């Protein structure tokens, strides 16, 4: 009050700061709040990825990403990381088209903004479609879910064993038909997988002691097939129980062995974190769609602020790409 009365220019400026209307960060309220939202979202993602790191460090074994992610659409197999590289490239490209949309907005070029926004939406939808394929493949074909993970660290080379070889090695055959009934599962017509499992002689009938003959998803028995250390993968699909089981194999030095399942946390973390990112992409596509429709309707022409809404949704979209840089690093590269 006293300062106001002295009419001093410097002090008055200090006072006026509290009356609002000035932006010390030279950014609008909306843009600033978008930055702080993204900061908090970065902490959420960082928390998830750090949890992944802590759980991975706490585990003796961990799946190798180049074996988990080695399939692509159109029947491509044994192509490690190829499909996810494509997905990453799609997301990068959509980030660049977003940059173009913002630039056209600053030129007040309505058609340019709408065109590049639609390109960005196309990129987002392609990414989401790819992720849907990736999830479907992992769940339905590879058997990874939030509670199972057939992928482990494959430490030995060997050859898959047939039923006869197991029996002659002194294993005992146990029928699993009653288990199939208990599961309420009807037997597959013509399913080639054996309706039995094998126990070492005298061993207790507990899951850890059960050995199965290796069969793939189509019920084809893989006995006699050899594999290299680190090869894809030592778990078999049981057509009677619809469960993944541990396949019997013979190591180079003649032992009969089976590989344990991989850590369950891998599947849970994968679906949770990539799902959370995918949800961001999905909501980003919705926001982009809304902004594109608004831009088309000429709403932002009237505002004469260089299409600032496009810039704000652009920040969100770049952030989604930024998060993918780290999801890609942590899940697929390391």
């Amino acid at each position, binding site marked *: 009050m006293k300062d106001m009365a002295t009419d001093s220019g410097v002090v008055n400026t200090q006072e006026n700061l509290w009356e609002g209307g000035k932006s010390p960060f030279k950014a609008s309220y909306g843009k600033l709040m978008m930055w702080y939202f993204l900061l908090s979202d*970065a902490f959420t993602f960082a928390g998830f990825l*750090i949890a992944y790191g802590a759980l991975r*460090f706490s585990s003796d074994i961990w799946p190798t990403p180049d074996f988990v992610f080695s399939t692509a659409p159109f029947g491509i197999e044994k192509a490690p*990381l190829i499909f996810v590289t494509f997905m990453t490239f799609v997301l990068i490209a959509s980030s*660049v088209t977003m*940059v173009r949309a913002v630039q056209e907005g600053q030129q007040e070029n309505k058609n340019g903004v709408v065109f590049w926004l639609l390109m960005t939406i196309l990129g987002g939808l392609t990414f989401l479609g790819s992720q849907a394929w990736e999830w479907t493949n992992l769940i339905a074909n590879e058997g990874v879910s939030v509670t199972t993970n057939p992928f482990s660290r494959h430490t030995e080379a060997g050859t898959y064993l047939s039923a006869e070889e197991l029996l002659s090695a002194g294993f005992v055959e146990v029928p699993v038909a009653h288990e199939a009934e208990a599961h309420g599962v009807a037997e597959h017509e013509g399913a080639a997988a054996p309706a039995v499992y094998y126990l070492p002689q005298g061993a207790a009938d507990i899951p850890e002691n059960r050995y199965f003959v290796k069969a793939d998803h189509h019920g084809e028995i893989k006995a006699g097939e050899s594999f290299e250390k680190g090869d894809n993968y030592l778990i078999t699909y049981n057509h009677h129980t619809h469960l993944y089981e541990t396949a019997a194999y013979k190591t180079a030095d003649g032992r009969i062995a089976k590989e344990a399942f991989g850590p369950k946390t891998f599947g849970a973390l994968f679906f949770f974190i990539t799902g959370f990112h995918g949800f961001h992409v999905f909501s980003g596509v919705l926001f982009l769609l809304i902004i594109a429709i608004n831009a088309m309707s000429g709403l932002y022409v009237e505002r004469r602020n260089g299409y600032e809404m496009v810039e704000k949704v652009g920040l969100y979209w*770049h952030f989604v790409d930024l998060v993918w840089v780290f999801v890609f690093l942590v899940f697929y*590269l390391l």
Partner: protein
Amino acid sequence: MGHLSYEESKKLAVKGLSILAVVTISEVLIALLGNGHLIEGFRLSHWVMYPVMILLSLYKAYFIVYNFMHLGFEVKGLRLSVLMPVTLLIWGIIAFLQDGYTWGKRRHDLTKQKTEMVKQVTPPSQEH
């Protein structure tokens, strides 16, 4: 891109696409080469691969935040208010990874201890 002319900023977009694509492809090549998928019998140590891949990813993150999200050209106060809190993660990463490592070591020791106890109580006749 207020600090650049329209033509310059268009060039930046093309440059960004090529930089990010090239860095991503090199990351994948390092992963495939290092894990022995490209050259028969040739592998790289994880101690070489991992730091390189982490640094390349951090470079991509820097490029996106500074150029695409334009943070490099905002007022210093805005820049610092976004970037300073992120430094908290440095300790977060160290602390939780160390925690996970200790957790795993204890689990390993416990499993070993249990296996030894089972061996002790099992009579020799039942061992196979």
